[in-house]
């Protein structure tokens, strides 16, 4: 009987968070006074009551096997009374009450292959998406590039030698599930070939008016092709957004020869100092070159280092570029400015340089 009721339960929502809070957190909830970074990846929060909570932040690859989760649990049982949390950027945080547990925990984590860091003026883990692991839309892989980029930048995760925080994110298509649009550096998978319509099947799987309507540039119109009721795409009007594909499976854009990656810079989310900003196009196209995407990793490293070398303390990527101006940024970064960089979408005019504030 109980069993049956159980089966019909819906809309009960997630478990209440309180049962997952360590006692020290419950006791000092809302009473934290200040925090300090003790060393890379380790900080302490001090409460009004004087209580101290130590946090050790460790990188995960986000894609975790249940084996790995269980290993984490073992560590949390050993050092944290069975509590553990994840962060909004997919790191794992161990909350300790005993300072002396910090180093043994870090040792165990490193032994498992999980670096500790990402706190303070560091690069934290990449927010990213599914890529070839799970999504039909992907113009590139997600986890693979993330792995290569962070292998290369690991020093900036494990140390805090940057002028400020630097957030990198990746999305494998223009849907931008990784919400890369406000990242210091964004890696974005892009298509560059118009959809190749499966004329024979389109009518069966999609509604033709919906497909036409889905195109923001009105590049799609109903047409009979090879005797099939289908659509035709005016290729010059296509900017590869894949909205048609989202609406209709018979219009795939994935294409090994033309898909690849673009790099965007200067976005931020926090309101600290400068208001939030969108990322802007830096490198229009780099090829998909698995398994190690050398072009992408080296481009990202150059950008990180250029910023690290030139920005003032606390200056995020976008704040730095705003101070020195985009022309100077392109020069310093050695990136050729091209037609592709110039906005030509709806509000394009507002991105034109409407002053003489120029550097030479």
């Amino acid at each position, binding site marked *: 009987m109980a069993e049956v009721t159980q*089966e019909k339960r819906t*809309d009960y*929502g997630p478990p*209440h*968070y309180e049962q*997952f809070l360590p006692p020290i*957190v419950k006791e000092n*909830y*809302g009473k934290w006074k*200040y925090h*300090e970074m003790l060393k890379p990846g380790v900080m302490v*929060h001090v409460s009004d009551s004087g209580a101290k909570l130590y946090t050790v932040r460790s990188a995960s*690859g*986000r894609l*975790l096997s*249940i*084996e*790995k*989760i269980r290993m*984490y649990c*073992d560590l949390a*049982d050993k050092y944290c009374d069975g*509590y*553990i*949390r994840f*962060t*909004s950027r*997919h790191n794992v945080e161990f909350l300790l009450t005993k300072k002396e547990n910090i180093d043994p925990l870090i040792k165990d984590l490193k032994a498992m*292959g999980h*670096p500790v860091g990402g706190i303070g003026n560091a690069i934290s883990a990449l927010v990213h998406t599914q890529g*070839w*692991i*799970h999504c*039909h839309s*992907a113009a590139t892989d997600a986890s693979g590039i993330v792995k*290569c980029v962070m292998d290369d930048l690991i020093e900036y*995760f494990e140390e805090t030698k940057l002028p400020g925080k630097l957030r990198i994110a990746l999305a494998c298509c*223009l849907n*931008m599930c*990784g919400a890369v*649009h*406000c990242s210091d550096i964004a890696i974005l998978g892009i298509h560059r070939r118009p959809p190749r319509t499966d004329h024979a099947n389109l009518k069966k799987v999609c509604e033709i008016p919906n497909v036409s309507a889905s195109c*923001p540039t009105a590049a799609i119109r109903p047409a009979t092709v090879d005797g099939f009721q289908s659509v035709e795409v005016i290729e010059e009007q296509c900017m590869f*957004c894949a*909205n048609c*594909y989202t609406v209709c*499976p018979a219009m795939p854009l994935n*294409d*090994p020869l033309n898909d690849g990656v673009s790099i965007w810079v200067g976005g931020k*989310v*926090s*309101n600290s*100092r400068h208001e939030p900003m*969108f990322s802007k196009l830096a490198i229009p196209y780099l090829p998909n070159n*698995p*398994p*190690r995407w050398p072009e992408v990793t080296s481009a990202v490293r150059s950008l990180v280092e250029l910023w690290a070398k030139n920005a003032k303390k*606390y200056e995020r990527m976008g704040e730095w570029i705003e101070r020195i101006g985009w022309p100077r940024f392109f020069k310093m970064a050695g990136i050729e400015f091209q037609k592709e960089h110039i906005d030509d*979408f*709806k509000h394009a005019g507002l991105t034109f340089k409407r002053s003489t504030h120029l550097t030479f």
Partner: protein
Amino acid sequence: MSDAALKTPKLDELEKGKWPSFVTEIKMAAKKSPMARDLLGQLEKSYRDKLGYWKHGGIVGVMGYGGGVIGRYSALPEEFPNVSHFHTMRINQPAGWFYTTDSLRKICDIWEKRGSGLTNMHGSTGDIILLGTRTDQLEPIFSELQKIDFDIGGSGSDVRTPSCCCGMARCEWACYDTMAACYDFTMAYQDELHRPAFPYKFKFKFSGCPNDCVASIARADMSIIGTWRDNIQIDKAAVTEYAKSGMDIKADVVDNCPAKCMEWDGKELNIENSYCRRCMHCINVMSKALRPGKDRGATILLGSKAPIIEGAMLSSVLIPFYKMEPPYQELKDIIERIWDIWCEEGKNRERVGEFIQRVGMGNFLDAIELEPVAEMVAHPRENPYVFYEEYYEEGDEEEEKES
């Protein structure tokens, strides 16, 4: 695919290097899970061919719910039969992503039995992502989740799983209780979360202060970001401490204030709070000396989203300051009105931010019965194209104008 044949020279390259390897994770799972093993095989092929091999998603789910499962099928089911189905389940994470090891182990156990053994901790909306299972496993999994009190999250045109920063649990700057609010709203909107009935998705994200650690201003249709109304609390002694310890207060703090409302004469730090923009910078840098004021609440913003189709948007101010006190009724009333007008007049696949831009903020405010305030705009209009709704007719008494 026969066990003996599984060679992954491309993917093996991704086991090198210091960052945790997802390939290693898949291989760990693959020891027990044929699904994980075929995933590895198909992925190796993707790496070789530079192409994903997943078919366009199909609609699958559990009884009673309209979302929460992303259907996925291999385009190469003959080559990789174990991923011919490879559906993802989105499980609503607990607020702030805090767990007991016990609860996590229970999830692992279910997923060991009935799924690929692979997860994302977490998806970028915030859910626990259980990565890869077959259609016939969906109901059994849901029924086992019920037993451990984990419910399914959102997908499709519904409320998406809300998320929040750790807030008061582990942060000195939380201006309201993010986890309590996140939980409350999640519970209040269970029906909207599980049964898509909107023109498109609607996301909530709760950050405790303007640092916005869940990036809510960039990726939530409603962004609820903590702030304060009164003066920054200053501990003068602690300021002196910072100065003594060598901090260059002028360069590091004062010169970085976007409002230019701070003064430091080498001895005393003064803040002209009526100009302070609540940006957090000074507080971030001098965590021991400065704290947000005591009259705390949140700024409610509306409309952020990724670029498809009108271009990406950040959320914009709807309520400059709202006291975030349960049951948050006034806010919920406004949300209802927003949903009403958006459901009624929104186009299919039109996010609320796009909807507002299409109908005009002024008209939108009329519809949700909110007074316009200057805080809603970065600046007033620059163009002279004002729609006045009434005019005098000859013979009108001046007083009679209103129509």
